[in-house]
């Protein structure tokens, strides 16, 4: 799993996650994105076109960021999802949570 956080000119953040977000790598991602959950800026986009696998621990990272944006009252969008990842989001109800 790799991830990258970029600040856009308008101050919003772009988080790009790629590879396999499994139990082990989710723990790593969670540590890395916690500051983003605490200060998401005026908005957050999570781009996952190259995310190939997600575990329940990975979904926990999304909950962390969702809660952070909700607390801050800023929009969160998830973009570029592969069909296999969309299936997991549908299966777990996360599609509804993220308005997909």
């Amino acid at each position, binding site marked *: 799993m790799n991830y990258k956080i970029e600040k856009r000119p308008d101050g919003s953040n772009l988080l790009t996650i790629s590879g*396999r977000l*499994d*139990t*082990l*790598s*989710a*723990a*790593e991602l969670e*540590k*890395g994105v*916690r*500051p983003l959950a605490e200060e998401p800026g005026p908005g957050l986009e999570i781009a996952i076109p190259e995310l190939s*696998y*997600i*575990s*329940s*621990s990975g*979904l*926990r990272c999304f*909950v*962390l960021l*969702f*809660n952070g944006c*909700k607390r801050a009252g800023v929009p969160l969008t998830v973009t570029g999802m592969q069909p296999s990842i969309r299936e*997991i989001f549908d*299966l*777990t*109800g*996360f599609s*509804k*949570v993220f308005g997909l």
Partner: protein
Amino acid sequence: MTPGLYLLEAPWRLTDAELQKGMAQLPGHRRLKAQAQLTPLGKRQSVSAWLLLRYALRRLGLVDDGEIVTGIAGKPAFADSSMPCFSLSHCRHAVACAVAATPVGVDVEDYESYCQEVAREVLSDTELASAEGNPRKFAELWTLKESLLKQTGEGLTENLRELLRHKPENLEFLTFHGNAPYALSICGIGGDISGLTPVFLSADELID
């Protein structure tokens, strides 16, 4: 083999000196991972998790220098099958390590992770009745589900809502609430984890 469940609460309390000392005591592959963490808390959680595993192994007369492999859902395990099974988890308030002779899953979750929208999607109607608006109960139920998924190591293959209802007969759970606002659940083969109680450790006990 005697199973064990070990915890370090408030990993953020590790001082910089303790962090550096602990880091230096990790196996090389683990030290690189810990050093790569971007945040101070992340480094502390990473170091603490491995020191807890080392502590657990030492209690069994074993050392932690074996090769680690990962399963399909990323569940880590020792490549040497004679070594015990283990599971690690962390949240803001605690880091946990469980070891057992058979596959085991442990999960810790802060009460503050409560999210109403998620609760409505991942909990069954019965679970939701007790957990909606109740971060403590939500954390408990989330860790139960997550510990089950970590025990099986299979990843998400079914709806989270009914996950606990479909739990294999041979598995059992134990749940605890910590001294800080977090819940912990452990899932393992019935009999193997019965009566297990968490052992709370300090940084002094983990770092040589």
